[in-house]
């Protein structure tokens, strides 16, 4: 395990190698070597199982972190490969030739995050949504409550009173701080 990680950091310049719990290691790879790295992990290191791939929106850093979770059944170890890509015109190499379910994930990422995977089959098709016109909903700046209020109607007649403010109004209207 350690020798492999050493080799990876040398050959693929992977960084941030952290063991999260026994059997789960995370590392960060550059975008341009990611596909080769994944192929290497699959073919040479026995990480044959793609648990899933997904993205995390680090809007404050201006990046999407793509997460490829790979599992090695023989050594029972899992590798979480992180790849940071630019949020603007987000695009990543497709890995649909490596794993058969990868194109589905890429379709999902395309639809819900707006990350493009050129060459991935049916990547332009609707996946979960239909006729979505807003910014991709999984992006952090998409405000789901605001969208709901704008789009859907809720039942009227609701409304709550804050106990503290209510008591202030009834019991000590002219007192307390800033009065």
């Amino acid at each position: 395990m350690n020798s492999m990680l050493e080799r990876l950091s040398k050959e693929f310049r992977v960084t941030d190698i952290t063991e999260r719990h026994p059997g789960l290691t995370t590392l960060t790879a550059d975008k341009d070597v990611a596909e080769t790295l994944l192929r290497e992990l699959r073919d040479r290191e026995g990480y044959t199982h793609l648990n899933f791939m997904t993205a995390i929106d680090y809007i404050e850093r201006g990046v999407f972190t793509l997460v490829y979770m790979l599992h090695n059944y023989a050594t029972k170890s899992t590798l979480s490969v992180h790849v940071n890509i630019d949020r603007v015109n987000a695009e990543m190499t497709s890995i649909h030739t490596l794993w058969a379910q990868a194109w589905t994930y890429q379709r999902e990422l395309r639809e819900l995050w707006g990350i493009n995977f050129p060459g991935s089959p049916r990547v332009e098709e609707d996946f979960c949504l239909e006729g979505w016109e807003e910014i991709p909903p999984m992006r952090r700046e998409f405000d789901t409550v605001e969208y709901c209020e704008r789009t859907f109607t809720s039942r009227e007649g609701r409304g709550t009173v804050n106990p503290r403010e209510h008591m202030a109004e009834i019991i000590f209207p002219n007192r307390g701080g800033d009065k």
Partner: protein
Amino acid sequence: MSLKDLISPFFVWQRAFEKPYTVGLKPIVERPGAPAYRGFHINMSDDCVGCGSCFTICQNHAIDMVKVDGLEAHGGDSGLRPRFDYGRCCWCGLCVDICTAGSLRMTNEYAWFTTNPDDFRFVAGMENKSWDGRTGGYHRHPDYHLFPPKRIEMEMLAPEESVASFTEVAKGYTEEQAKLEADRCVECGICVATCPAHMDVPDYIHSIRDGDYEKGLQLMYRTNPFPATCGRICTRRCESVCPVGIQGEPVAIRWLKRFIVDQVAEADYARILPNVEADTGKRIAIVGAGPGGLSAAYYLRLKGHAVEVFESQAQAGGMLRYGVPSYRLPDPALDKDIEHIRSLGVEIHFNHSIGRDTAFSDLLDNYDAVFVSTGLNVPSQMRIQGEDHPRVMDGLKLLDDVANGKDPQIGTSVAVIGGGNVAMDAARVSRRLGAEVTVLYRRRIEDMPADTEEIHEAQAEGCIFVTQAIPVEALNAAQSDQVTLKWGEAEMLQDPKGGRPRPVLQEERMHLDTFDTVVSAIGQGSNLDYIPTEISDQLQIKWGKFIPGDYQQMVLNKLFVGGDVANATADAISAIEDGHHAARGIHRFLDTGQRG
């Protein structure tokens, strides 16, 4: 395809003669929910305090806190009750788990259908529902908690150690302890209404969790310029209504307050706390540098008014300095509060007695407003024979002497008469001076007005409590430096009107005990002699106390009063609020000319 495969499916027939699985058609009657079923809600409205924790935790926004007819906000009850929207609720039961009062639970009723979807909304416990009487259903398991029910213990000096010196007994929270304790707050804000000063308790507790103690200090000074003091000796009515305390122990609000002050150095106060506004040119006189007077001084000074305080003693603090022993409130803590007030430019004239050094009427003439907070400094009489015996002294004098560094010469056996905080202080101070102490009280321990903690600590420090004991006479003892106290046992007589039981002296059960000193601590009264009769005649005064109008204002527009001499609660935090409120009133009066 084998013959077996063809035949074996016909085994289905063997079940044809079994009893059917099918259940009846009436839902609730024939199949009630399981005993712990999470069905429709029920709320014991009398137990509910309307803290809104259920509202806070509900991820579906299924709960509204609403006003209901017949319930008013009072004391520890916001008067609001949860209204459930069964177009949102998912019956997770988090509201039941978090319910601080334990009033909310779920029944095992589960059937409700209607043609009008707006029906699915009700105030549990206030509207009649078919499941109201049900006993089954989900309630929180006693060993399952969503917030820690027990408070973080404050480390105290051991009694054998504490009794040996005047070192502060409570050691204060460490940062880790304070954060854990602050974590227990549910941020309902019920305590804010009960706190006489309406301090922003949830907010400054929040600042502890954030580790932002400077913000915490700012929040406290919004309503209370004595946080170091109140963090130690406040009567903490907030804790008595803290909903967390209903099923567990209340959040240690007082210790958390103290923790914040202890984290900020006095040198940083000027940078953190608000500064004085531009001078208004108005002059205000304040009589008495106790918590009430200095609180008024602080808030008036912040508004830019020139403030002069007249204090008859040599140091500021009033009862906080001379009435509270230093093992509860060390002088440095009190000084920290007072020094900040003085640093804003509040001028204090020490050893300056109104009536003696300056006439009260001069104050009214020479200043734009006068705030009077002279406190209760005259001990009440026991009204027994021999009260003027030289070995009978009053508790306030004892405390005063000790605070001033004088030896009160109490000897080695002391009887303290009374059950209030002053009596406890006198008893514990006497213990520290090396005396054996017996506390005599007319009623039972549970009737004592003193803090329960104080009573426990006094007991732990070795004070002997004799309850239902009524002093009758102080007699000369065989030795001239002793006094013999004649006291009788009392029986508690139930009040036929339902009031609190009354002690009745049992003439046949009298005792004679000899002590070096008898300390009387049965209460205090005021001394308003400094006010000339022609002025006091115009004022509303009852039993030696002022009856102020709105904003603590008296009939004379310029005169505002507050503190023990003007309220019924007679504690520091009320005095502080009186001072603050009078400051609001004075500022408003000077600004707009409006009366309260």
